[in-house]
């Protein structure tokens, strides 16, 4: 019996999904499109950004929306020296856990920075909006460092 040839071929598994947002995710994405950031107040009083649909402690539906700031503080980060093809930024960048002003928990998004050395935990960062906003999480293009304002 002849040895089997190695049959190998690339393929793409993909679909452009149509996601209905429901009221909570919809509020947040509508806000992004309009250049605003909304969180929601949880059962323990914490402001959660992006807004959780259901309370992280009690699972109750959440509806008490709060607009929060567009600047915040870097709580943790990591440096991607070789971005993957799927990543939104193709230059070396950081993933950032950012607690926006007025929020009580951080959110994760990309952070554009010239180098890992420029990034420090505690740094002040600001939202950099996408040129065209459509109501999607990528309306936040990324975070950027605010100069000389470590807190």
């Amino acid at each position: 019996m002849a040895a089997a040839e190695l049959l190998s071929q690339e393929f793409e598994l993909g679909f452009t999904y149509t996601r209905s947002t429901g009221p909570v995710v919809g509020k947040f994405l509508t806000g992004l499109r309009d250049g605003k950031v909304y969180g929601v107040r949880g059962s323990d009083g914490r402001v959660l950004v992006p807004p959780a649909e259901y309370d992280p402690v009690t699972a109750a539906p959440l509806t008490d929306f709060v607009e929060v700031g567009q600047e915040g503080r870097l709580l943790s980060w990591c440096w991607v020296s070789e971005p993957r093809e799927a990543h939104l930024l193709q230059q070396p960048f950081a993933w950032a856990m950012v607690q926006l002003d007025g929020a009580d928990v951080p959110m994760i998004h990309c952070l554009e920075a010239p180098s890992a050395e420029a990034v420090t935990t505690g740094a002040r960062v600001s939202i950099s909006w996408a040129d065209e906003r459509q109501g999607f999480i990528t309306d936040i293009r990324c975070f950027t460092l605010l100069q000389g304002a470590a807190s």
Partner: protein
Amino acid sequence: MAELAAVVGIGQTRYKTRRTDVSIAGLLREAVDRALADADVTFDDIDAVIIGKAPDMFEGVVMPESYLADALGAMGKPMLRVHTAGSVGGSTAIVAASHVQSGTFKRVLTVTFEKQSESNAMWALSTPQPFSVHLNAGAGGYFAPIIREYIRRSGAPGDIGIKVAVKDRRHGARNPLAHLQLPDITEQEVRDSMMLWDPLRFLEACPSSDGACAMVIAAEDSITGSKPPAWIRGVAMRSEPTMYAGREEVNPQAGRDCAADVYAQAGITNPRKDLDCAEIYVPFSWYEPMWLENLGFAPEGEGWKLTQEGATSLDAGGDIPWNCSGGVLCSNPIGASGMIRFAEAARQVRGDAGAHQVEGARLAMGHAYGGGAQFFAMWIVGADKG
């Protein structure tokens, strides 16, 4: 040896082609909130959460139970995700029941869903892969030849499928949650609908739906709610390979064995006589006569006679109504479809099935199948403990 367990809460969404008003989590919560309310419990009373759905490609969320933990109030609890192809709704209910029947938990929440409108069912069920050796003509293309063989060997008249299609849609018109609402459907309309996969016409096939179904299952000492519990009298699952030499595709042995197992547990010797009604997974009309035989409601080759004489019709006053809720032919959120059968069987024996109630139902069967009619899950629920 198994501990006694019962369904004490049932919640379903309205089934629709597209539920654009809710997120994925919101869709599940609609069913879950109704099930908790029906059982008169809150998340605090739930010990574990068991979730099921068909392939993740439908919504494009990998192992979505991770994301859904918060919405299902599972924090700090065990959570399990079942996936057994089309039978998953049924097997999820059985796995959930085992959490209680094993004596491990007092009360569990189980939920299944599909939000098929996020993608496209045809695509999600047969995503492209290189070097596939099988021609893919969709689910109908797979099952239609098996139906043709059934018709050949049973000699069933050609209109049996049409009768099932009309009967289940008329049943569905009694059920406000049903996706297809076709109260005035006629046999002529079904006959005139497009022949998709000969001998299956458009109106003989199930729709593609968004929806979720949830249940609360509790131990004998933890029954809640004001409605009577539906006691779980038997549970069974069977699997066999998709293809093997000599496989009986029309009347799969896995289905026959599964039924024999679940009947033995519930003390059923004559399903047509002993059961008051059944919710059986019939996604294509002809599967009613085929499953009537496979499940022992009729001798081999004679299932179609029950359909023909109206034995399975609530409207015709049949002695063994099948799919009073309208069945899969009216609503088909794939991952939930099996659990809907199990839940609707429970609704019947709780006397809580509304306009599609079978009067005085005491013992009912829920059934689900999947893959190439190779995975089976069944349960029997009763108004009595047994």
